[in-house]
């Protein structure tokens, strides 16, 4: 009774005291708009009703507005630590640093779902806003399909995982977010990853719209390409960031673990990469049409599958959200409708597509076909390996099996290596029919260089597995071939530099983009190989004053100090690194204890150089033998070339960006005046 009086006062108080409910209401409005958008425009496209088609534009904007309001409301609740919101109670704490309060907004299942939906609507609105070169009917259909996905996710959120569930009276303080997740890299990781994951939704919508319309042609491929590129770039960045996070936060120095959750983000990437290339063939040669459509559907289906796996508790994973079979069933229903529906539509419509341009076995088309087939095979291997434990359990009635990194390394790498070889040749091939002897002639020198480079490494390094050297040779091959192709295009060294410069600036940006991305993959491969094959590791008990030598460095352990952070305290080790008696740097690895969440994390300290990382992490001895009294466990790794992984990834993303900025992708966009002249010709 006293309580009601108080809440009355609160409601009449400051505005932000009702934000959680405003957020909830905004989600309901977004759902209402999504429902309208999923019906009106597509009907409009069928009846050629301009008003109905036009409504897609504004309802897409409305959706993004309301979901943003909801997202900001949730963020506000996290920032102010409003513990009347259940989601805040479960994932935040008043002592948490502000950055992680903000990041907490998408740290939980509910919040991340809201972010998912936000990005979904952002892509819809982006098509409504920037897609002025897309025919009205196709745009209307695409936006309707996008709204179907919106409806699916909004209802999923509102009916099974509402981020605005309330608690009253509020508990005195919140449980903390898993400290492992309190990290800058990880705070930014989901948004980027989701941008990629969810970005493919619009490509999916385009594909379904095209199937409904029964029209796929060069123009369609060109309209879809920028969206595919944008999603692919984000996903690439997201995966790279996640792997970087694992590398320095988990304290093991590894960057890829073939965990199911990693795999499910990797599969859309592989498929998306195939789609990117297959769409080029559709655009240039009007070929591979049903294949491109299928890839578009499969890429987003794999994204959805990822969401399903992470949120249903189907597979065990380090990263999975809380297990809830009810949610799992709901997403499975969503999957059945979206994937099943789109594939059924595909099965019905695809055979009606006209066959495209013809080509010879040695041609750019054939090269891209090889790319597609290998990427699809690789995706299949990862998919099968990831889900096999489930299949096995179902078939044997409860027996369990693990499919771990040894399987994936053995099955995935051999499948992918031929792709690297093909990537070297592909760009040299011309459309329709290529001049094989000519290409071989140009690549002879590249092959020689790759062999020489590998031999040089073999001479310098102290052994290593054959597969490592083979991969290295292919990485050299890819890098040199890519550079060779670029210099050939701009005729570098064949005339004055000024001519080459002019040619380079005349070259379409997408050509530069491809070169940068392909070279990026080669660079990343150097990183993968270096940090896998020539990694060295020391694990030991050390007393203050101890000296360790690793990878040519001398490391001195100076002792440990207790330090305090905002919501943790830490044992901080002090290490001095020198080489040949010359001081280089100090390293401060930490072992943090978070009292509220009752858990501990390791914060490694890294000395990063292009040649490799010196990576140190610390923990206190678990055993209390007299011999090790006062000693600390130190783990020091030397990871050669590991930074090439992130540099290569950045090159991939930048390459995508260059391609995206190519003016050809905007052809047909009304240039104000042109729009008037491009009026429907009166036949």
């Amino acid at each position, binding site marked *: 009774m006293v309580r009601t009086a108080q809440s009355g006062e609160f*409601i009449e*108080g400051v505005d932000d*005291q*009702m934000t*959680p*409910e*405003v957020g*909830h*209401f905004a989600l*309901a*409005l977004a*759902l*209402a*708009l999504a*429902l*309208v958008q999923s019906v*009106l425009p597509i009907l409009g496209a069928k*009846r*050629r*009703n*301009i*008003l*109905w088609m*036009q*409504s897609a*534009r*504004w*309802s897409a*904007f409305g959706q993004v507005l*309301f979901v943003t309001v909801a997202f900001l409301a949730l963020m506000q*609740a996290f920032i*102010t630590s*409003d*513990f*009347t*919101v259940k989601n805040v109670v479960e994932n935040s704490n008043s002592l948490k640093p502000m950055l992680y309060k903000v990041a907490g907004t998408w740290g939980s299942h509910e919040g991340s779902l809201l972010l998912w939906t936000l990005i979904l609507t952002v892509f819809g609105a982006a098509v409504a806003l920037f897609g002025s*070169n*897309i*025919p*009205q009917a196709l745009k209307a259909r695409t936006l309707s399909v996008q709204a179907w996905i919106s409806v699916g996710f909004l209802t999923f959120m509102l009916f099974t995982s509402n981020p605005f569930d*309330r608690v009253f009276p*509020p508990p005195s*303080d919140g449980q903390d977010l898993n400290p492992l997740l309190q990290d800058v890299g990880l705070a930014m990781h989901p948004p980027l990853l989701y941008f990629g994951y969810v970005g493919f939704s619009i490509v999916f919508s385009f594909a379904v719209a095209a199937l409904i319309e029964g029209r796929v*042609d*060069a*123009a369609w491929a060109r309209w879809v390409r920028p969206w595919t590129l944008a999603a692919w770039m984000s996903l690439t960045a997201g995966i790279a960031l996640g792997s970087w996070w694992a590398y320095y936060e988990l304290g093991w120095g590894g960057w890829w673990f073939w965990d199911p959750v990693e795999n499910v983000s990797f599969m859309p990437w592989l498929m998306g990469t195939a789609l990117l290339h297959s769409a080029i063939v559709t655009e240039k040669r009007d070929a591979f049409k049903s294949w491109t459509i299928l890839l578009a559907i499969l890429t987003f289906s794999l994204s959805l599958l990822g969401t399903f796996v992470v949120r249903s508790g189907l597979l065990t994973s380090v990263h999975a959200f809380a297990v809830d079979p009810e949610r799992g069933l709901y997403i499975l229903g969503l999957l059945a409708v979206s994937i099943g529906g789109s594939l059924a539509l595909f099965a019905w419509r695809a055979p009606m597509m006209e066959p495209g341009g013809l080509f010879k076995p040695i041609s750019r088309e054939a090269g891209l076909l090889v790319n597609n087939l290998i990427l699809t095979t690789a995706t299949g291997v990862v998919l099968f390996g990831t889900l096999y434990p489930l299949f096995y359990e179902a078939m044997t009635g409860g027996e369990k099996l693990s499919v771990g990194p040894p399987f994936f390394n053995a099955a995935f790498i051999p499948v992918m290596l031929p792709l690297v070889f093909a990537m070297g040749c592909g760009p040299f091939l*011309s459309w*329709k029919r290529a001049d094989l002897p000519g290409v071989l002639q140009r690549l002879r020198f590249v092959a020689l260089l790759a062999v020489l480079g590998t031999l040089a490494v073999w001479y310098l390094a102290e052994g290593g597995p054959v597969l490592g050297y083979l991969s290295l040779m292919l990485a050299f091959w890819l890098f040199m071939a890519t550079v060779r192709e670029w210099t050939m295009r701009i005729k570098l060294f064949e005339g004055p530099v000024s001519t080459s410069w002019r*040619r380079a600036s*005349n070259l379409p940006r997408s050509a530069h983009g491809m070169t940068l991305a392909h070279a990026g993959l080669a660079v990343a491969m150097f990183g993968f190989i270096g940090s896998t094959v020539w990694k060295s590791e020391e694990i030991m008990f050390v007393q203050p004053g101890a000296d360790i030598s690793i990878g040519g460095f001398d490391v001195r352990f100076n002792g440990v100090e207790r330090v305090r952070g905002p919501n943790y305290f830490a044992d901080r080790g002090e290490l001095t690194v020198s080489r040949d008696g010359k001081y280089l740097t100090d390293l401060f690895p930490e072992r943090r204890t978070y009292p509220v969440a009752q858990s501990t994390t390791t914060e490694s300290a890294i000395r990063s150089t292009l040649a490799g990382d010196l990576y140190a992490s610390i923990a206190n001895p678990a055993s209390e033998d007299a011999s090790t009294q006062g000693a600390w466990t130190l783990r020091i790794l030397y990871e050669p070339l590991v930074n090439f992984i992130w540099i290569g990834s950045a090159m991939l993303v930048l390459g995508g960006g260059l391609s995206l900025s190519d003016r*050809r992708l905007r*052809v*047909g966009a*009304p240039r104000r005046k042109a*729009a*008037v002249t*491009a*009026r*429907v010709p009166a*036949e």
Partner: protein
Amino acid sequence: MIWLVFAALSTIGLLFVGLPLRRRSEMTSVMADTTPAVLLDQLDEVKRDLERGVISGAEATAAEQEIKRRILMQSRKTAQATKELTSGGRFAIVLSAMFVPAFAFGYYAVMGSPEIPGIAFSERTAERQETAKVADLTNQLYDRLTTDPSGGPSEGWMLLGQTYSRMGRFADAAEAFGIVAKRPEATSAVFSMLAEALISAEQGVVTPAAVTAIEHAMELDPSNPAAVFYKAVALRQKGDIAQAHDLLVRRLNNADSFYPWMESFVAEANRIGTEIGRAPISLANFAPMVNAPGPTQEDIENAQDLTVEERQAFIMSMVERLAARLQDEPDDLDGWMRLGNAYSVLGDREQAIVALERAEILLSEAPQNDPRRQTLKEALARMRQ
């Protein structure tokens, strides 16, 4: 206030659907198919590539042929697609626009919680201070009790134990009660509180220590409801469900009037009763119906599948019947006390005070050593706080 915000948001939502209804003239221009532009650009590109020497003349011609073939197809398609654009359907748009707020309010009416305010952590300093104060006082009390050379007064330990219980620190509470339980003056209530704390500390599992405490409580006062309740819990965990059920029902039958604990007794008895197929019992059977007409069979049946609110209302009606009877028999001292208790349980403080004051008047004629005097005084003091 909050509804105002919702109304504003809904208006915006409505506008977002309704907007296409405005501006009509500009629409046709956007309808242009941009495929021709793409095809022309492809032709251009072949030309550029040829100039740059990226492709040979033969390749360029072949590519041009191909694009021209597409142009031809496109040109014929455009010629065929003569179906006129329509721009009617305004009614559907208006209807859709209305749907948006209607849907949102409909959903929110069911799922929303507009009555709960958002409270930022920074606004809760008073509450935090309160919590800190309680914790501080508890610590002080603990210090005083432990440093007391005579072991500290039992009342102090009991207060400490109850505070700990409320804070959810059941193990500490059990320790505090345990100290009093070892003293000769330990009452049945001390042991039942001890049992409760022990069981809560083990998340509902009755440990041997808890069983001992329950036994002691039962020995000292076989009618102590808490003791009986936990005895039943212990029996049920041992598997003697029937015995547990009997015990609960027997105690309910022995109650002379309505008490707040009866509800949990009935709930527990029904919960375990279903396991052994006993018919559900109803609170109405044991509620204070000394002379009032008893509840009909229908009442009982209804009461069994009531929600919390409905059950509250049901009890309320029982209480009202008691109140009505007391209007006719105003000299029933026990009746007034029972009514006062009932109101206080229902949270109606004013009514409770009125009833208790009536009892106080009647009680002034009772002998000085009447135990009801003390009870009444305490109850009144509590209500008047």
